[in-house]
Every structure is written in C-alpha cells, then in structure tokens.
C-alpha cells in the first residue's frame, strides 16, 4: 500500500489507498439504505399440509391349509406444487406475503436471516426427523433472497425474499414467497424399496397393519370373519404442515444490476413419460416438453422398452420435433423376454414442445409392456458427438462411461423384470430406469440391480 490520495478532477472524484481505488465516481460502491430496512423479529411463516391420499397394497397367499391376506396402507402425497399463482406448474396457490416497501430505485436486497424454530405436526419421516436445511439459531445471509428450508426424498420446501415491481408511488414492495413441491413415488436413493403397483403418490407414512386369516375369507381384503384381523385407520392421522419462526433484517440497496446477460444451463431434463402398457404398435408417438428454444439446442432422448413376450425388440429410428435423430447407442436382448434401451440425439432449435416418435423393429414390437422416455435439452455442446457411450448386455457388472467436466450423462436400463435400479449415476424421476447426471470429468461406473429375472441391459452416453 502506498500513499493515500484523494483526487478531484473534472468529472472524476477518487479516493485511493495508494494502489487500489477505495472510492471512485466511475466505480459504483454497493450501497445499502439502512433507513429503509425491514426488520422482523419472531416472524412466523406457515406452510400448509400438502394434499394427500391413501395408497393400499394388498396381496394374498394360498396354501393347502390356509390363506393369508396382507394389506398395508400408506399416507401419500400425490405430485403437487405450491407457490404463487402464475408460476410454472402450480397446482395449489400460496399467496405472496407482503413484508413492506422500499425505495423504488432499490435493485438489491441484503437479507440476514436467523431461524428461531420450526414447528411441525407429524414430522417423523421413516422414523427419523429431518432437520431443517437452515440450522436454528444461526445467522446467515440469503443469496438472491432464496432460502431452501427442508427437503425429503421426494418433497421440498423453500422461501424467497423478493423485490416486487415499481408501485408507481416511489416504492417497491418486498414479498415473502413460499414454495413446496412433492413428486410422485420413487425415492431417489437406491436400496431395498418395493413400490406397489400403480403408485401415483409419494409414500410418506405407513399407517396400516396386515390382515391375516387362517380360514377361507373373502377375496376382498379386510374381510372381517377371519381369526385375526388387524385394525388400521381409514382417516389420515398425519399433518405435514410446518411453521418456521424467523428473525429477518432486509436492507434494500442499489447495485445497478442493469440488464445482465442471462445464461442458459448446459443441459436439463425437460420431460419424462412412463407407460405401463403402450398401444399395440411398432411405433409410438407422444408430445413432450422441449424447454426453451435455442439455435444450438440438442435434444437427447433416453428410451427404455420391455416386452414380456419372447422375441426380439430394437429401436429402429427416432424423431424429435420432426427431426430425425441419431441413435448413438442402443442395447437389446431376447434372453427370455425382449427388451431394449437406446439413447438418441437430434438438433431441434425451435419449439418448446413437440412430437417424439420411436419406431421399434423385431418380432416383439406389439404389446410392449413398459415404455419410458426421458428428454434432456442440451445447449451449445462442444460437440454433438458424445464424449463416450456405454452398451452393456446381460452380462451384469458395471461398465465405464467416460465424462467431461461441465457435461451431462444419461443412462437407461431395462430388463424383463422390474424394478431395475441404476447404480453409478445420479438419477431420479418416477422410476429407477433412466438416469441423469451433471458430470465433472470423473468416469462413471454404471451398473444395475434388478428385482429378479434377467440381468438388465444398459445404454448410456455422455456429452459436453
């Protein structure tokens, strides 16, 4: 550090520490306006109980001496998204909460937050209480006003402190915006999970018992004349609402954000379709979401198809938004039953949605029993050619898929029996059959486990 200097010239005032400019009229200092700060102590933010439903599982066994009926009940949260009206995919409205007003020239909020407490009503999830993402009693700062609050395997809650538009009276409003989202069934972690057939909700709580009989009961579960019948509730005893209590100091500021350039992400999943049974045809078409259009957008389609009959099944051609796609990798098997996986890519610059068509070839193209399609939008890839591909047949084990930093990997797994579980790649969605992951250059060793029957086959590819 040299000799400090205050410099006043025509059109320029600067204060220097000898080397660096401490203040300059050409370099805006980030300002906060303490007189307009909004201070809230012990402020309650409430999230409602999500929409719920029951999920029933029933099975029976028959022997020469007895018959047993098993019933389990789960409280489930069907797919839903709560937030302000007008946001994408909102199923239930959570109105913004007005916190106060700040000067209309404010373009930045400095938010200091301390979570004092969280009140929950039925929060035991899988026998353990999930702590909030913000540790109580700790003062933190919110980047961009966002505050993720809690997250379970398939549900999440967050809030934002946001600046509203100019009110026209010299002020802007500051709002607290709440979000909560629940996905369909399918915990994102691998392991011993057995999802009953036709599950449409996210099992969040088991409340049922089992019905066990040793005489000849009705085929209807729960029939009451058996020797032993466990009772189970038929009303929802749970409440997954929550109230968070905060101390908040929201100080408006001016940072002259101007009109910044917005960047698109490199890649993101835009849609996924899953069918238990598809129409009798060798060609299947569906309308799928593509995401924002871009002159250099490429769409990657992951395909899983299983037919429970003997024969052969392969993907012969794919089109996405009317554009013929290149099949970069595919695998198929006729070991016992016919099943196939494939990854295809096409450059689709226009449209936020469109028709995806998959044509199959082979002797088992009719009555495909399970079809899954996952679409990933990829922007400005270094190359439309994949970094690597992986094709693994019914040999089992894992296969190596090279990746690049800042890229994406997709994988698809199929077999004649379900559920299959991909390992070695982050995945999610409503089955375990199509994987997706942002990559950092580390090689992925991708394999799969299966509920039984044939060894799964895998197709995977990575781009950057």
């Amino acid at each position, binding site marked *: 550090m040299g000799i400090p200097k205050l410099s006043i010239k025509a059109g320029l005032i600067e*204060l220097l520490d000898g080397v660096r400019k401490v203040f300059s009229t050409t*370099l805006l200092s980030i300002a906060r*306006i303490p007189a307009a700060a909004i201070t809230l102590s012990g402020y309650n933010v409430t999230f409602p109980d999500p929409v719920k439903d029951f999920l029933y599982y029933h099975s029976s066994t028959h022997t020469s001496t007895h018959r047993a009926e098993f019933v389990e009940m789960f409280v489930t949260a069907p797919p839903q998204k709560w937030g302000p009206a007008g946001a994408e995919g909102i199923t239930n409205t959570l109105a913004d909460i007005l916190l106060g007003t700040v000067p209309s020239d404010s373009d930045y909020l400095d938010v200091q937050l301390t979570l004092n407490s969280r009140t929950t009503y039925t929060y035991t999830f899988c026998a353990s209480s999930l702590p909030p993402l913000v540790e109580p009693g700790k003062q933190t700062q919110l980047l961009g006003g966002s*505050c993720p609050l809690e997250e379970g395997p398939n549900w999440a809650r967050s809030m934002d402190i946001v600046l509203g538009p100019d009110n026209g009276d010299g002020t802007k409003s500051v709002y607290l915006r709440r979000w909560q989202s629940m996905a369909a069934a399918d915990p994102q972690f691998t392991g011993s999970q057995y999802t009953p057939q036709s599950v449409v909700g996210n099992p969040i709580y088991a409340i049922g018992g089992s019905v066990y009989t040793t005489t000849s009961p009705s085929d209807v579960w729960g029939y009451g004349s058996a020797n032993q019948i466990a009772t189970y509730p038929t009303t929802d005893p749970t409440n997954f609402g929550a109230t968070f209590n905060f101390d908040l100091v929201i100080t408006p500021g001016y940072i002259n954000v101007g009109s910044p350039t*917005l960047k698109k992400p490199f890649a993101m999943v835009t849609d996924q379709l899953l069918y238990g049974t598809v129409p009798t045809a060798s060609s299947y078409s569906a309308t799928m979401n593509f995401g924002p259009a871009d002159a250099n957008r490429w769409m990657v389609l992951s395909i899983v198809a299983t037919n429970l009959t003997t024969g052969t099944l392969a993907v012969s051609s794919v089109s996405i938004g009317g554009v013929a796609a290149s099949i970069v990798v595919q695998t198929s098997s006729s070991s016992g039953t016919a099943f196939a996986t494939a990854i295809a890519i096409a450059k689709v610059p226009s449209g936020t949605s469109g028709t995806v068509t998959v044509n199959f070839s082979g002797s088992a193209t009719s009555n495909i029993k399970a079809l899954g399609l996952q679409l990933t939008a990829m922007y400005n890839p270094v190359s439309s050619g994949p970094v690597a591909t992986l094709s693994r047949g019914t040999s089992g084990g894992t296969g190596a898929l090279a990746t690049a930093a800042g890229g994406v990997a997709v994988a698809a797994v199929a077999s004649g029996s379900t559920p299959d579980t991909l390992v070695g790649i*982050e995945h999610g969605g409503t089955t375990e059959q199509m994987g997706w992951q942002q990559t950092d250059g580390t090689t992925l060793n991708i394999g799969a486990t299966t509920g039984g029957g044939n060894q799964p086959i895998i197709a995977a590819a990575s781009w950057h």
Partner: protein
Amino acid sequence: MTIFRSKAKVGAGFAIYQYSGNDDPLTDPLHHIPALRLHSDFDYYAAASGFPQDVTVAHASIAADTGQSIGNPSTVQITYFYAVTQNDYVLAAHNLGYKPNFMVSVGGVQYPVAFPVQRAVGGARRSVMFWVDNTNIYVREYCIPGNVGLPAVNITYHVTVFRDPTASGTHLMEATASRIRLAYGKFDTNERMAREPDTGETVYNVPTDRTCDINNGHFRFILPDGSFYQLAPIFGFNSYLGTQFVSVPAKGIAV
C-alpha cells in the same frame, strides 16, 4: 462530461453525486439513489481487518447410511437412506463482537444456503450453509451420505467479513500521511470496499434474484455464474414468474 458534486449540508450529511442542477440527491437521497455515488446516510460494504482471506477446510468423510424403513418387511416395505449428519467448521475468527455481514465464494462463485458442494451417486450430498456469531464465521455441512457414503474433501473458501457499516468517524474528511477517511469514516483507505471492479480485479457475481428453484420435490440451485446444480432431474424450466428461463441476474463486484 458528467459533473459530480461533493457537498455537505447541516441536517443532510455529506454526498458525492451526479450533478443535474440541484442538490436533491444530497437532501432527498431515497428518491435519487442512482445519481448518488456516496451518501453519509447510506451504508457501504467495508471488509473487516484481515479479510478477505482464503481458508481450506478438510471436510471429513461421512459413513454410509444403513437405511430407515416404513411398512411391513414381510409384505411391502419402503426403505430410504436419508439420515442426516451435520457438522460445523470454523472458517475464520473476526472477533468483531457482533454478527457481521459476510460473503463467501468458492472458485469465484458464491453459494446459496444448502448448496451441495459434494455429490455422490444415488443423490448423496454434502450441502453447506455459512453463518456467523459474534466471534467467528463458520461453514456448516448438512450431509446425506445415502447408502454410498461421502469421501473426505478439501474445499477452499474465499471469506470476506464486512465490518459494521455505520459511521466510524466524526469528521466529514480526515487525512494523515498514511490514511484518509471520508464521509465520517464510511470510506477508509485502510479498508477494501465492495464496488464495481476495476480493470484486472477479480470479479464476484452478486445475484439480485432467486438462486433456488423448486419442482418435482427437489431443489435446483442456480449460481450467479449461470451454472446450476440439481440432485435429481427437475422437469420443466423453473419457477420464475414471467419468463420460463433458468438463470439469475447478477452484478459483478470486487472487494
């Protein structure tokens, strides 16, 4: 040429502002914010002594989870690997005696609350949150090791703690041979200020809009450099009102 005026007035304080024929920015600052370059009624971000500094934290490994189940093991059982382990690490001591503002970045990018700094297969993750007390600044990790566990990882954090921005001096301007203080000490040549970057300076992006999206029961984090991270595919674009786009406006600053 833009004319800047530096002026002090009893009851109005001191200001440096773009001059447009009147002194309204000085006397009515709340309605002339863009014209102001400095006003003694406003606060500015001055780095506390000893900051910024780089701190490398050795985050310990976290053992794999053994799973938690609901349902009946003889019929239908759903097992989740969702145990949570939390740990705090001290990033730096500031010893200010109050809870200060701060800015923490990794590789030039600030992370929002609960950002997953480490991810593993199957959705396992190590998320972080930065927090302060009267003495230290900390990073708190929130780990979900899943059924695979999390290996140890070293992460270097660029930590800046800002001092109490209220006036620290009594004079409009004070100067010695080694130090100049302006606007009652709000600007001090002994301190580094957060401001627009000069040529060649390291730039940190400060987001001015949401950095977390939510959909499909999961979060998607959108960082100020335009990159994003999600732990599971999130269908659709984002939850932003008005436009369907994944990004966040940000302003480059230097400290």
